[in-house]
């Protein structure tokens, strides 16, 4: 049973949130993880999610928006089913990160922070994702793909298009 009546989240996530708020000396410390889990479930942080999180943490919605807007990896608009994040930070840049990014743009027909019309893919240029040893790298949802070339990118994208890619949350 969720602590919030008419929760907008799944029963599992609601239960997780109920527990989460008990873990910290002050409730609001649960804010950032909550935003992230909410995004993972809904695909982005919706206004309804902002309201419920504010309610759960006894915060003003404004407080939630303040924190939400600070983090570039939290979204307030839906992303594609597969969110493609291409790293162009130093290591990747030196090893062709921009080529990978350009190739993605071309193949998907979308730019930075855009979503394909069918809602399958979205694209983002991001800072270092911690895979420098295998640069250039990209991340699709939470799954890593490294040592990329345009050809490898095509394979990866095709895999997701066919619904065969991993889709971990």
């Amino acid at each position, binding site marked *: 049973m969720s602590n919030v009546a008419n929760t907008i989240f799944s029963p599992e996530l609601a239960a997780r949130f109920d527990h989460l708020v008990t873990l910290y000396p002050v409730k609001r410390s649960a804010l950032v993880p909550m935003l992230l889990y909410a995004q993972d479930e809904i695909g982005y942080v919706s206004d309804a999610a902002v309201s419920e999180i504010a309610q759960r943490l006894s915060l003003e919605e*404004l407080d939630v*928006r*303040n924190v939400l807007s*600070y983090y*570039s990896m939290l979204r307030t608009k839906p992303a594609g089913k597969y969110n493609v994040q291409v790293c162009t930070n130093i290591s990747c840049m030196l090893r062709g990160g921009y080529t990978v990014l350009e190739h993605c743009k071309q193949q998907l027909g979308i730019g930075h922070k855009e979503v394909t019309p069918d809602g399958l893919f979205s694209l983002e240029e991001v800072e270092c994702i911690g895979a420098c040893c295998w640069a250039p790298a990209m991340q699709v949802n939470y799954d890593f793909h490294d040592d990329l070339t345009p050809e490898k990118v095509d394979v990866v994208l095709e895999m997701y298009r066919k619904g065969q890619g991993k889709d971990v949350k």
Partner: protein
Amino acid sequence: MPDVTLTVDGKQITAPAGTLLIEACKAAGIEIPAFCYYPGLSLQAACRMCVVRIEKMPKLATACTTTVAEGMVVQTETPEIVQARKATLQLLLGNHPLDCPVCDAGGECELQDMTFKYGAASSFYAEPKNHREEQQWSPVVYFDRPRCILCYRCVRMCGEGMDVFALGIQNRGSSAVIAPNVPAHLSPDQLAHVDCEQCGMCIDACPVGALTSGTYRYKTRPWEMNHVATVCTHCGDGCKTTLGVRSTSSGAEIVRGDNRDKSGINGDFLCNKGRYAFDFANHEGRITQPLVRKDGTLQPASWEEALSVAGSRLKELRDSRGGAALGVVGSNRITNEEAYLLQKFARTVLGTNNIDHHRTADYVAFAQALAGHADRAASLHDTLKAPAVLVVGGDPTTQAPATAWNLRSNVRQNRARLYLANVEPIKLRRQAKGFLQLAPYGYNALAAYLAGDEAAAAAAAADHAALASFREAVKAEQDLLILIGAELRGAELKRLIEFGLSIPGAKLALLADYVNSRGAADMGLLPDMLPGYTPVGSQSALATEYGAGTQPELTKPGMDLLEIFDAAARGNLAALYVVGSNPVGRLGIDPATLKDTFVVVQEMFLTETAALADVVFPAANLYEKGGSVTNSYGDLQLVSKAGDTAGVRSDFELIVRVADKMGADVRKLVPFGTSTGLRADMGQTRGAQSGEADRHAIWLAANNLEPRLSPFDPFAILDEVQRLVPGYNVLRLQLLSGNDQHLSPATPATVDLSQRRDLVSPSGDSLFTSGTLGRYSSMLGDLQRNQAQQLVQIHTAAD
């Protein structure tokens, strides 16, 4: 805390341990620049303007977050520091528009001052500036994003200070921006707004012109105004507000209200009414010439005609029907001098005790209950310092916003313990240590229960355990400050006060609605009380002065407000004299009631009451005259003339002129220039003696004294107030210096309160209303509409 000694710029200073370096320096006369630091709010250390060099510290340190320490050696202004501050300024100016020539803050801007001082005049940035359009967040709050220097003062002010939390900070780094609580995408007009109390404290705190006020923006420049410190007319707290005044062809227009030097009783604070609701003074509906009823309609008349009609008719009616057939209604918004003069006029010229006003709290019972305990009457200052506070009834957040501000500050800064007993879950409960939910109408029962009457528990609150522990907690306190709302009156109020007096060191105050509600009662605008709560008919210097005893009707209480209108309905009221009040509108009096009554009204507007009058005199408002007022707590303050509207006169002058036309001896009414009084050359003579007059004026000013040569000078009557009214032992120099002083009632308890009729009727004003006067403030009207719209939005959003 013990003092520590440190060296700043080679000068030894001492300060209590724990003091912030910036404050210690300020106290020693050393100014350290600061943008983000704001006394009383949490520390932010966001701007780095306050950096200083402290010996043995590796880097420059922020004086706004460093506490003083024994032996500390500090440099506050070296080439290194100057360079650091200059660099900070250059960064701030990187995207700052260069619109000082049109910016509201120009001339009063901390960024401008600092740029001037540190000479960061040229920029290293060649990039174009990132311009954003100005946003209107509410009728009174505007935001100009590029001007913002991200000091977060507004965010802290609104959150910590106001407990509203309507402003936040969004995004990060160079795109960080101050954001209001109604985001554009959730707003029907797709524009961002604030849903808040509209106090304007954020604007006041903003060191630059990023937040500007709807009333003042782009109207004038700071140096083009005269700044007059006076007292806000809108609630019983009586904040000092500084009105910015500009000359116009018809007098002097008030263009701004703000808290300029923060030297008043309200410290930092002003609410929306003190800041914006001065605009009634400029309302186009002002009456600016006398009106006399001719052939059934009110028509403009000359002063001479109107005064003669009023004077001769009043005299005639007094002589033919007697003082008992005359009634007088006074105001909560006139000065003490005017209120005193009005009751003196009623009692000595009209010969009647039929005088009353709209009572918004029972100060008679308050004075009676505190008789002999003058030191137990609290001042507004106590709300900021008392270690524990009990608030019974009322809702300070909306009815006495400065009181609420002080209580919040006291809880935040001194950990004061706040206890509330209320029938509503009022907003201050968020700061309260204990909140007692009372049963409907449970105030009297609570007073009885606190005083030890266990049987009253059932009627006081549903939760008996909470009630019991609440009483226990309150009784365990010492030096408790008890604030009482207008819900408690008469014998029950007395009972609560007696309970309060049983607590060691407790102090009490009774909260009323308008600037001089307390003064109106203090000055005897009551049928049964002379000034200073001297019962009519008792032996006193006042009674002798007013001839009670020689005139038998003056030894008996007169008719109260309701009785006056009852008498009118019966055809027994020959004349009614109303000063700055709208009883017809407020009490819903049928106009036919006054058909046989000769009505004289001193008013600013054609209110329901003025519309029925036979003679209407155009009156000046509180911002257009001098004198003194007394707030709910008994703090006396000076009122100064700021605005000026051609064609109006002060209530003081009007009363004197009417009395004169009635054939009264004006010199008796207002003791001016008497044989013991003052005669002086005020510059009428020019030529060889002119220097004499100027020297005299300078001498008077230097000694905070005033010449008293005119019957229209309110200070002429203040002498008499001081001489005759118990408790009004005014320190003249204190008053004239613009400082508040606390007065408490000083009459013995002689009145049987259970026999007094309860005529208190609180005005029920909200944050955005102010009685009849408030109807003539277009800004308050805008704020009401804005508020109503927002409620609709919130409801539609919830559906």
